[in-house]
């Protein structure tokens, strides 16, 4: 009986354990990268308002900047999430993926606006990437806004 169960569910167990470890390592690394790059790009403010805060500011250039990120949810979290969705409650398995996707998208948006003083009118949207119950799931985030360059920035 035990042998039979082991035969049938050993691959699943290995998959769960393996993907738990890979998922954890990848997430730790990603968060380290996010924190480092958030510090590096901290000079560029991003706001969701488009209002000119300083009426005297002279804008030399403005352009659309966009950042996208697709973060996968590994098998372990997908599986636990599937069980979790049967029972109810906060789907904590998907929380960090959503958080990482959003922050990665904002970072990429900022990185594509090198030299800008700020990005205004920032919007962030999410799309779940999943085909029904297939073992492929993830979160896509897209962040876009208007990068503005002030005249003194251009001169400086």
């Amino acid at each position, binding site marked *: 009986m035990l*042998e039979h169960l082991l035969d049938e569910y050993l691959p699943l167990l290995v998959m769960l354990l393996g993907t738990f470890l890979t998922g954890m390592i990848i997430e730790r690394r990603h968060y380290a990268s996010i*924190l480092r790059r958030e510090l590096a790009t901290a000079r560029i403010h991003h706001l969701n308002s488009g209002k000119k805060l300083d009426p005297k500011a002279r804008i030399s250039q403005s352009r659309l900047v966009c950042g996208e990120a697709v973060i996968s949810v590994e098998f*372990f979290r997908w599986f*636990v999430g599937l069980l*979790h969705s*049967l*029972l109810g409650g906060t789907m*904590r398995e998907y929380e960090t993926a*959503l*958080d990482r996707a959003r922050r990665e998208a904002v970072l990429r948006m900022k990185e594509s606006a090198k030299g800008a003083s700020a990005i205004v009118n920032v919007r962030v949207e999410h799309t779940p990437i999943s085909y029904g119950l297939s073992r492929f799931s993830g979160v896509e985030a897209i962040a876009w806004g208007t990068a503005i360059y002030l005249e003194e920035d251009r001169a400086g």
Partner: protein
Amino acid sequence: MRGEYGFSDNPNVSKGSPLLGALKVFAAAAVLVGTLYFSIGIAVDAVVPLLPDSTVQSISKRMDWIRIPSGGKMTPVEQSIQRLADRLAEADPDAPRIRVRVVPSDMVNAFALPDGTVLLNTGLLARLESENGLAFILGHEMAHIRNRDALRGLGRAMAYQMVAEAVGFGSEQVFSDPAQLSELAFSRGQEERADREGMDTVQKLYGHVGGYDEFFRIMQRERAQEAWAAYFSTHPHDDRRIQLMQEHSDDMGYVMGSETPLILPRDGDESL
């Protein structure tokens, strides 16, 4: 503005260890699955005995994967075994009428389908030496049919499948695969009851219970061969069954008699 939160201390991420959270989810899901498993089993066992025979027949007809292809005409071997089955049914008013079908397979086994068809593998027939041994197998399968054991097993399997599909774990393949005859595996209790009742039927025909353990002797010989080990691991309690049948025989005052040799027409012999 600096990056304010990472993996830990992040307001957008639930507190606590993710692994511990996952274990809680597994535990809760296991409780849910266990509750469903037992309640389905109890419900099926309660409903199946109440079904009228016509319902059993119509359910059986719907299980098209389980129907064994037959040319309609019975082979001489099938006719011969059918006559023995009819004699058993006449001797024991409680025994149901069955239809005998022989399946070309080396596996030493017999199956009782819900609609009253009994499948005998050629591998089993080739190893049987006495008519009494065959009668015990037929009586055992008759008891399974009367007790609707196959229907219980299938009812459970079907209910589990429905639940599995409802939650998205299911595959449509399960019930279209004829290999799923293993779904007809019965519980220990069902097997032991069928052993006893089959013995009663055979006693009524022959007046003795000689040869009741022939099937188990064949099984034990086969088990010695490694290739069968996987299958027989699902029948680990043959010795216990022999002992229980012996006890039943003693309780009922049955005696052992001499066995009649089994003579079956050769394959393709149309003269019979």
